[in-house]
Each structure stands twice: as structure tokens, then as C-alpha cells.
């Protein structure tokens, strides 16, 4: 990231990051910071909340109101913060296990409510911090420390899950396609309602190493070769797209937002009963 953005938003004394060489998380973080800087938001109006895992350490580096909660529960705290003080801009960063395994229930309900929170999923297909156990997004057949013969549980498609549950902005990006990611995160952050960006983030240490991608470069090359953007598939037939993962914006709709509905349809109504 640009030095001035790093100096402006990172808690310098907390560096270096704990993340391994080749981890995609720092790239996603830089993208979030560029978006915030572009909007010119005050640091005092931003809350960034995480759960547990490698991604969970993200808020600690950031000079905002930062909260490192329990495993999977970041969205519950975020809901309370946003509901109590809708003026705050609330961003939740979660891993794949964090958001859709242990936190799956909170994820679907935050989406259902369409509360104005942005959830950015640092999706590396694995529980990295605990040593590479299979997660709910580990592809079938991939090796994990708890799937030594290959994962058999079908993975979640976080984009489809979020759309199915009522999120009103849903996108997928990767830590390799950075300009596209910048754009998606920007749009998610200014979206009114529950917005989700599923970001594929390489984990060479715990995932790639076990799955024929030993080096950092191979992990990023895999993303380069196996991902295709929504705009690039226009006019292409299924066979041409193959098994490639589609990135881009999948949903961007306007729907009444939770805290606004609560104010409009409940607080304002009961406080000024119609004559």
C-alpha cells in the first residue's frame, strides 16, 4: 500500500503483521484502507470488528475503533454497535471458518436483517491459524490437516449463501485481482444495507503447501489462472468458462435498511401515535 495510507491508518507500533509470507490478507487490508481513504471518512466514525483466526488479527493494526471478538460472533457485536449508534460505519472482517462455520447462524441472520454492515470475508479455504484444518469452503478433494485423504464435505459458495439470505450487495474478488477488488470493496462500503465481499486469499503455509502449490508464486498463479471476471464471461459458453471461479458484483439492490426501518416503523410510530 502507499506509504501515506499506511502511515495514516496503521498503528505503526503494531507492525510487522503476523501474517506469513504470501498470505493474501495484507492485500485485502490495503484495499479496504484505500477505499476508506478515498471516501475521506473520519477515523473516529469507523468501527472494524473481527472474530478469531488469522483474519481476526486485522483490526489490531488499524487506527479505528477496533474490536477483536469471539470466534464466529463478530457480526453479533457489529449488529449491536450499528443498532445502538447508526452513525458509526461498521466493517466486519472474518475468515471462512469464522463467517460460515461457527458464525454461520449470525451470518445468515445479519444478511436477513439487511443491517448496514459490510462483511469482508478473507476466504483462504482453510483454518490457517490453527494449522490447516478443513473449513466450510475447502474444495472437495483438497488436502487439509483434518482431511488427510481429501475433503468430502461440499463447500459453501459464500456469494450464493449471502444472496439467498437477503444481503443486498454481494461480490467476490481475489487478492490477486487488486484493482477489481478495490472497486468491489468501495461499492460494498458505501452500500446501504448488508454488503458482503467474498475475497479469495491465498494461504501458502496451510493450504497451498498441502495442495501442490508450495511457493507463494504458485498460489497467486492459481488465482490468476482459475478465476474469471463477470465481464469476461459475457458471450462465453459454459465449456469455455469451465470450472473457473467467477469474480465481480453479483447483487446490488436497494432495500430498506434495518436501523432505518426500526426508527421509521417502530420508534417514530410509537412515539407519535396517529391522531
Amino acid at each position, binding site marked *: 500500500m502507499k506509504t501515506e495510507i499506511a502511515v495514516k491508518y496503521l498503528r505503526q507500533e503494531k507492525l510487522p503483521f503476523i501474517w506469513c509470507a504470501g498470505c493474501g490478507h495484507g492485500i485485502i487490508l490495503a484495499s479496504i484502507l484505500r477505499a476508506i481513504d478515498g471516501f475521506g471518512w473520519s477515523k473516529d466514525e469507523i468501527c472494524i470488528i473481527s472474530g478469531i483466526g488469522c483474519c481476526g488479527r486485522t483490526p489490531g493494526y488499524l487506527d479505528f475503533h477496533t474490536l477483536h471478538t469471539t470466534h464466529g460472533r463478530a457480526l453479533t457485536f457489529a449488529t449491536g454497535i450499528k*443498532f445502538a449508534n447508526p452513525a458509526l460505519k461498521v466493517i466486519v472482517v472474518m475468515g471462512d471458518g469464522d463467517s460460515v462455520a461457527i458464525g454461520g447462524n449470525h451470518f445468515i441472520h445479519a444478511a436477513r436483517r439487511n443491517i448496514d454492515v459490510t462483511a469482508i470475508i478473507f476466504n483462504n479455504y482453510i483454518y490457517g491459524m490453527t494449522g490447516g484444518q478443513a473449513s466450510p469452503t475447502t474444495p472437495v478433494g483438497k488436502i487439509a490437516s483434518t482431511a488427510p485423504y481429501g475433503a468430502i464435505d461440499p463447500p459453501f459458495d459464500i456469494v450464493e449463501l449471502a444472496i439467498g439470505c437477503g444481503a443486498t450487495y454481494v461480490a467476490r474478488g481475489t487478492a490477486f485481482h487488486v484493482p477489481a477488488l478495490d472497486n468491489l470493496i468501495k461499492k460494498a462500503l458505501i452500500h446501504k444495507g448488508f454488503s458482503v465481499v467474498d475475497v479469495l486469499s491465498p494461504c501458502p503455509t496451510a493450504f497451498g503447501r498441502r495442495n501442490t502449490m508450495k511457493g507463494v508464486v504458485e498460489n497467486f498463479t492459481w488465482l490468476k489462472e482459475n478465476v474469471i471476471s463477470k465481464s469476461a464471461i459475457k458471450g462465453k459458453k459454459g465449456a469455455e468458462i469451465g470450472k473457473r471461479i467467477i469474480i465481480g458484483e453479483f447483487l446490488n439492490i436497494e432495500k430498506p435498511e434495518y436501523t432505518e426501518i426500526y426508527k421509521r416503523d417502530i420508534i417514530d410510530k410509537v412515539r407519535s401515535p396517529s391522531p
Partner: protein
Amino acid sequence: MPLLLSGNEAIVEGALASGCRMFGGYPITPSSDIAEKMSLRLPKMGGKFIQMEDEIASLGACLGSSLTGIRSMTATSGPGFSLMQEHIGFAAMAEIPCVIVNVQRGGPSTGLPTYPSQGDVMQSRWGTHGDHPIIVLVPFSILECYTLTIKAFNYSDKFRTPVIILSDEILAHLREKIELLKEIDVKVRNFPEVPPEEYLPFDSRYLVPPLAPYGKGYRFHITGLVHDETGFPTADPEKVRSLQERLASKIPEEEVRDMDVRYMDDARICLFSIGSIARSALRAVLQLRKKNKKVGFIRPITVWPFPYDEIKRLSRDLDVIYVCEMNMGQIVGEVERAAECDVRFIGKADGTIISPGEILYRVMH
């Protein structure tokens, strides 16, 4: 004007009078009518009610709103209280004020949903993992459901700690006439005295450091990991010890201790009980006194921290303490630790109350 209220309703009145403006909850018998009343009343006062997807989320949402400076509460019963243990621990570690009402029902597991119990006395103290401070208040009347809720919010803010109100199914739906207080003693949490650049959210110079609300210019970090004064994770044994010791000592027993002690001046026998069963115990004391038995009554209102020293002192002139509780023997162990006299147990956990007659029979035989 006096009101005829149930225990659950009195808790709602106490919470609203204390300035509670956020309730996050999940339905569970026999606590659900607290959530129902809060959903009705809070928006009229500009407050917020949210029904969350489970009890873990309920307390998570309360802790989030509390961090913005809003007094927040949740209410539950046995199975939901078990789920909340995760965030009770987070609240204790991150020192976030909140009030948790546990309307006890029979357990373990789904247990006896519509029948009373006092089976969560130890869980309310040690339910979450790790050493942690906690305050647990146990009402025995509808008036106390009201007044202790007010006290719970004040303690919670003053000591930056979760406070548990341990009610039960008897009190929840018992009705008594009470007079609401005209003036409420509301002591909200301290705001930092220093500017943001000097602020330490876990400043060890304080026993209870001031907590800045989110959105007021004080940007800091909160984690459930062991942290230093700045709020950032540490595993430095010196700093870990410093935090653990401050947490262990931050709730002064002598300040929060509250006991209902009656007829103890000449007593040789004492009936010791908490919550709704203390009503039976008190009745039994009165009946035994009529039979010229020298029987006294001790009822801790603050059950945690447990009044060990006070029990020890009071027990010196006693022959025996009968501990009456609606469980298979929980608080009796604490009384045994403290008392210098014989301690006997009168208890059951079959979903029926311990009547004054049952206590009387045991003491007479």
C-alpha cells in the same frame, strides 16, 4: 401509585428506570415476557429492542451496544444461560458492562422448562472458562427484582463487569404489590479524564479503568485475548499477572456485599437460603420462633462474591446452619467452607418448591 407486578415485569421496570436503552434477546421460558415487555416499552423511550438468532448473539449484540455507551441487558433461562457463557467470559475479560437476567428453571439441559430451580448458582459464578470476576444478585421478592436490577446496572458500570440477576420461575410469575421509586440513583460509567492520546482502556493505575464509548474520539483496541494496558494482546507473564490480579481484585466484597440477616442475636440454629426459597425459610423461622426455637435467618442478596467472612463471623455462635436450596447441593459447599459450626443441607431439584413445612420438619427432627 402501587403496582401489582410479576418478577419479570419488575425487572423490566428496574431496567427502564436505570436507563437501559437496548435489549437483545432470544425467547426462552420462563424469561420470555421480559423480552416481550422490553420490545413494547423500549421504543417508546427511544430505546432499541432486537430479537437475535440465539443467546450467544443476544449477549454479543448487548456488548456491542454497551461499547457505544448504551446501557444494555439480556434475559434468558438455563439452556440460554449456558450458551451465553462464551460472551460472559468476553465481557469479563474485555470489561464491558452489561446486565444478564437468568430466570432459573429445572436442569440440566432442557430440563424442566416451566418449573423452578436454583441449579445455576455455581454456573453463574464459574460457568465461563478461566478465572474471572463476576457479580451475581439474587432477588427474593418482586420489590427486589426491581431494586436489584437498578443496582445491577450501577455495579455493571461502576466495576466494568457483567452483572447477573439470578431470578427463578417462582419469582418470574409471582405477583406482589410494589411502589416504584420516584428517584433512581443512576451511576453511569466514568468517562476518561485524559485526552484520547493519553487514554489507556485498561490502565492499571485504576482498579476499574474508565471506558470510553465508541464514536467519541477515543480510538482503542479491545480483544478477548489477554492484553496489556493499551488493550493489545500480550503473553508477557508480568503483564498477564498484572491483568489477572487486577481483575481478581477489582470487585470489593465489602462494597457489593448485601445480606438479609434476621433473628440472629440469640440464634443457635440458622436457616440459610437465597432467592425464592428464602421466602420459605423465613416463614419457617417465624414458625420455629413461635415454638421458642432460637432460629435465625441469613440470606445473601449478593451471592457472588460470596460473603465468606461474614458467614464465618455469624456462624461462631451457632450450633448448626441449615442450607435450603432448590438443587442437589451447590451453595451449601460454600457455607461449609466458611462456617465454624455444623452445616446441613435441605434441598431437592424435583421442580417443586421447598415448602416452609418441609424445612420445619427437618429442623424439628
